[in-house]
């Protein structure tokens, strides 16, 4: 197991270098951001030249990349146009998005797996049909629609919650945005769990367990559910990365100053250090989440061993 983890960690290095390289070139291919800093006015050539020099933009692209990677290895992610260090932005933004993702994931797990289990156990009955129907509707509604609608209903119409999240972003304010963010994935989790449960209900080991005379709740939780969770765990693992990076829409609607907000701001202003830095961290999150999912397999299914 230890060797497996080390091998996986080593594999991350080329993936990391390759992805930062691609992102760097894609962001820089958008062109020179300095002209836009001056708004509708013509940039003063001397000032613009100094800013370019400071940002290393007057060098050829490969030199810029080496310079940037050199900086990253020493923990320096560069500076945003407003003079703030990108590491400071990350320090502010990542905890907020992490909390939001956590709410979404917990919501997905608790509600999604419960619903999936219920409908899987009652296949073909009315509970099952209605869950399938509701999840179909949820999957087909895009986030920006559900976000604005729920925000209006809960925030303005019924005044239950504040429509936007304060800068500190405490957990209770993140409940509604977290639900909106997790809504689409929730539907997937429900459907995956249901299919898996239905499939495993007919497995040999389950019949054995019932024949042994085990109580029903033990059969369902220890034998049926645990073995059915493998595809769900895979999905949730990759979803952690997707939710953290893909919260741009949700964060905009609820005015949450997290990763999505910084990325949006960075792209709009063509602020390469922000975009490349944040995406780099997201790549790492993605890789680590995938590794954890693989390790979780061994926990869920005793037949799986890593060497």
């Amino acid at each position, binding site marked *: 197991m230890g060797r497996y983890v080390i091998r996986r960690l080593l594999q991350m290095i080329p993936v990391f270098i390759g992805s930062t390289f691609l992102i760097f070139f894609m962001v820089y291919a*958008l*062109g*020179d*951001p300095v*002209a*836009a800093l*001056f*708004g*509708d*006015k*013509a*940039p*003063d*050539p*001397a*000032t613009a*030249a*100094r*800013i370019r020099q400071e940002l290393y933009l007057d060098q050829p692209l490969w030199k810029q990349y080496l310079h940037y990677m050199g900086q990253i290895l020493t923990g320096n992610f560069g500076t945003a*146009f*407003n*003079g*703030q260090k990108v590491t*400071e*932005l990350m320090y*502010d933004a990542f*905890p907020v998005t992490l*909390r939001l993702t*956590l709410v979404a994931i*917990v919501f997905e797990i608790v509600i999604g797996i419960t619903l999936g289990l219920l409908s899987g156990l009652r296949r073909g009955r009315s509970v099952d049909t209605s869950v399938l129907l509701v999840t179909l509707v949820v999957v087909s509604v895009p986030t920006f629609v559900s976000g*604005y609608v729920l*925000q*209006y209903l809960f*925030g*303005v119409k019924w*005044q239950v919650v*504040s*429509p*936007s999240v304060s*800068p*500190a972003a*405490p*957990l*209770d*304010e993140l409940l509604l945005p977290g639900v909106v963010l997790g809504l689409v994935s929730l539907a997937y989790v429900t459907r995956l769990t249901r299919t898996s449960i239905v499939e495993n209900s007919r497995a040999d080991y389950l019949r054995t367990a019932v024949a042994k005379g085990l109580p029903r709740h033990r059969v369902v939780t220890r034998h049926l559910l645990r073995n059915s969770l493998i595809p769900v765990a895979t999905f949730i693992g990759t979803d952690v990365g997707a939710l953290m990076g893909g919260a741009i829409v949700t*964060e*905009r*609607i*609820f*005015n949450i*100053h997290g990763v999505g*907000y*910084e990325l949006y*701001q960075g792209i*709009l*202003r*063509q602020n390469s250090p922000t975009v490349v830095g944040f995406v780099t961290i997201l790549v790492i999150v993605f890789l680590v989440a995938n590794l954890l999912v693989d390790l979780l397999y*061994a*926990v869920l299914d*005793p037949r799986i061993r890593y060497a």
Partner: protein
Amino acid sequence: MRRGTRAVAGAALWVLVAGLAATGCSGGADGTGAGVVRASWGDPQNPLEPANTNEVQGGKVLDMIFRGLKQYDPRTGAAEDMLAEKIDSPDQQNFTITVKGGWTFSNGEKVTARSFVDAWNYAALIDNKQKNASFFQDVEGYDRVHPAGGTASAKTLSGLVVKDDRTFTVRLRTKFSTWPDTLGYAAYAPLPRAFFTDHAGWLKRPVGNGPYMIDSYTRGSQMKLSRWDGYPGEDKAKNSGVELRVYTDNNTAYTDLQAGNLDLVDDIPSTQLKNVKNDLGDRYINQPAGIIQTVVFPMYDPTWNKPGMEKVRRGISMAINRAQITDQIYQKTRTPASDWTSPVLGDKGGYKEGLCGDACTYNPDEAKRLIQEGGGLPGGHVTITSNVDTGSHRVWMDAVCNSINNALGQDRACTVNPVGTFADFRNQVSGLRMTGMFRSGWQMDYPLAQNFLQPLYYTDASSNYGKFSNPQFDKLIDDANAESDTGKAVATFQDAEKILADQMPAVPLWYQNGSAGYTANLSGVELNPFSVPVYERIQVK
């Protein structure tokens, strides 16, 4: 193995629960005190240095925490003395400025002549990379502290001399009679010593001499300001403070306003323009701001600049149905333009409705005739170029092209050339790579007719993107600048504008309005000519 994995799973669950509990505690105490205005804000693009702030969001803060030599009246836009006791000039080129006594920064330091001179020298020096450095280009010695290339050969502007604690002199490179009126711009604000001695600390919490002090500033999310009770000026704040909150989506800010979570928004989302009057009634403000939108012709392209083309350019202007576009697309938040300045200048300041005359009046038949007489569109076709990532540029460009196509009775005479990002568009424009019309917006720096004309249409001026050049126009601008009588200067600026009406190097489209909405908690909300709320006049119930 089994035992081990169970322990791991258990530990993971624990971490999750502990994480939730810990993060749950971090929120809470975020209340807002009584009498505080909660207003929408956008993240300033640059650090909050006065000479480095060239957009409206940073400008809002500077407006609250700084007072300069002059202050623009929020209603009339007239430049009135603030810290200036008097500004004298015998020849419109040498100025002697006396600073009023009794003014201090909110940290107790006295505002002296040196506070201004040090700030201006800092702004102009190339090493400090200040984006508004060019505002000091009229001061003598600018080319030495801010050379076009290489390093500065002087650290300070030779045209600025401190005479005593409250007096300094300014020598300009050329005559510029209305120069004192430009001094209300934030770039000319005085700076305390702390700005120079502890720059990083100052940027974290800027200190100025205005009616408000900054209590806390969380970059990228919010700023809390409170009234400075020791403020010596007349325009003391009528509320106890302002809380600025950063919104990335103006729809969310508007929703927050409806929910009573926010008191003031100064950017009504375009999707809400139809509902805003129903929602807010007379708490919706829609008034002219010092912004004009034009489309510019690339005069550096010989096909647009040959004799006879002025008829085509005028014809295109006459083919645009401005009234219909401003009504239908903008719900009257734009006003059809009929000169090259802005209504906020007022009649005394140089605005003259209808100065453009027939050339800016919709007349499709005459438009078609003029374009044919001038030899037709170059290549039978014209494009309008703009970035389409922000604003509703795509929509109005389509509408303008439709209007031109209808007038000419051709389907493909005018087409839109969208550019993906603002930066790319700016690079194409400043690289002189345009072959057809392109969008140009101008937000005034100070409410003077000069600011709407000289930087945009004077030969080789800094923002003359179409490279329009006309010796007669240049001469009239020079004359107006040398004129000591304001009324005569304004008349001369208007004469210069008539040349623009003849030559039509840029088609005036519409004047942009400032819009704002507020809750019933507030009263006395108004927008200044820069479309920024006058925060110090707002009263909270």
